[in-house]
């Protein structure tokens, strides 16, 4: 007899992860499931702030992986995490432009040019928060044309050539292959994004959740993250 597993059965682990973790976590899922037969990882990607709202409103989630510390901190403050969150990766910002760089973008200063169409992530999303910090450090007052809901939406509009430039994570430029070009942001203006992960108090499957977090922190998990351009924590 086949028993269908659904609705938070012990063999499922629900992971809410920042949109920038899409490719890396999809591969971690495959590797984890190969070594943990019978366990199903369900990945839910989105802007970290939207994922936080889902968790705070009581969505049945086992593990939360955020793209910044302050969003995780507010989940901790709400008493929703088991123990202290652990930092599992870090990331740098880069300027992404369409192939061929039609806007002739060379640095953050170009974000002030009114003749270009430039986008950022919305301020509430980590990549939007970091992007604004980087522009601030560089002393640039940007002329923004769109605040995209998450980093993948922003990247998509750059890939299509609808936006001339945007600030995304270095890993996004990496994973986009040749569909966007990356322009490095000097260390003095750059912002390091740290990614924390935690098991949630209301996890329907705390054991599976703990095993998944251990796997992400393990050499096998770290090796996959490194392959997608993430730096060690």
């Amino acid at each position: 007899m086949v028993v269908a597993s659904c609705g938070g059965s012990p063999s499922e682990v629900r992971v809410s992860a920042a949109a920038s973790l899409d490719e890396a976590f999809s591969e971690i899922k495959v590797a984890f499931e190969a070594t943990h037969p019978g366990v199903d990882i369900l990945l839910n990607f989105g802007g970290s702030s939207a994922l936080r709202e889902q968790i705070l409103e009581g969505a049945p989630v086992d593990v939360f992986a955020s793209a910044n510390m302050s969003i995780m901190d507010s989940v901790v403050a709400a008493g929703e995490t088991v123990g202290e969150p652990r930092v599992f990766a870090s990331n740098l910002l880069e300027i992404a432009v369409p192939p061929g760089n039609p806007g002739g973008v060379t640095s953050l200063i170009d974000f002030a040019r009114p003749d270009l169409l430039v986008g950022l992530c919305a301020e509430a999303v980590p990549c939007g928060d970091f992007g604004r910090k980087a522009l601030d450090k560089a002393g640039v007052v940007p002329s923004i044309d769109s605040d995209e809901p998450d980093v993948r939406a922003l990247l998509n509009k750059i890939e299509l050539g609808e936006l001339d430039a945007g600030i995304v994570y270095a890993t996004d430029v990496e994973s986009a292959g040749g569909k966007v070009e990356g322009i490095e942001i000097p260390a003095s203006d750059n912002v390091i994004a740290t990614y924390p992960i935690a098991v949630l108090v209301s996890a329907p499957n705390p054991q599976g959740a703990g095993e998944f977090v251990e796997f992400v922190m393990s050499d096998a998990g770290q090796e996959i993250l490194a392959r997608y351009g993430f730096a060690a924590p």
Partner: protein
Amino acid sequence: MRRSRPPLLLIVLAVLGVAVFAVPLVGLLARTPWRDLPSLLSSDIVVDALKLSAVSSLSATAIAAVIGVPLAWLLARVEFPGRRLVRGIVLLPLVLPPVVGGAALLFALGRRGLVGEPLYEATGLVLPFSVWGVILAVTFVAMPFLVITVEGALRNLDARYEGAAATLGATRWTVLRRVTLPMIMPSIGAGLVLTWARALGEFGATITFAGNLQGRTQTLPLAVFVALESNRDAAIALSLVMVAISLAVLVVLRERWWKTW
């Protein structure tokens, strides 16, 4: 004749149906920060979004009136090859996820799109990330509501009235103006209200095609979406505004225009 009591089962199921719509509304009202409401509603983000939503939804409704009614007439009254296919294409946005519509608009009318690129090179006009892009996106999603309503009315119209007018020597144009249009006016009104309401609530096509910038392309639904993650009280206040406007219009206008339904 004595009316029998309505069957209990039907009543129970109908009440369940009401609950599906009413419970979320109660949830929203329960979370509303009533005391801070006036200051929340006068904040920049709310005022900007209100203005933009008014402009874009009313523009979409006007465009739908000008081109949607002739389109409905064409579909109802003119036999031409491929009419079913054309009707299908016109009504597609009713069932298509709006995000797909927004992406399709981007591929066609974006700055690097099929039509958008020559348009940009000839005129310098860029539709995405502009208020024109918002109007186009909401029109795309909302206009089918007018077309389907008016086409249905035209099909149900008793052809003898138009026939009689024609027999009396009226031209086709005069028949349309003096007989057909006045008879389907209630349906046009209802269709316009539905179109406007759908345009006001449009989210997916707008954010995909026109992006999201306060004061330029951030309509009420987009503002709610963004504020939910950063300022929940403002998001609830915005939601309340949308509920109040939409409910008022749907309740009041039903009395006036939907009697024939």
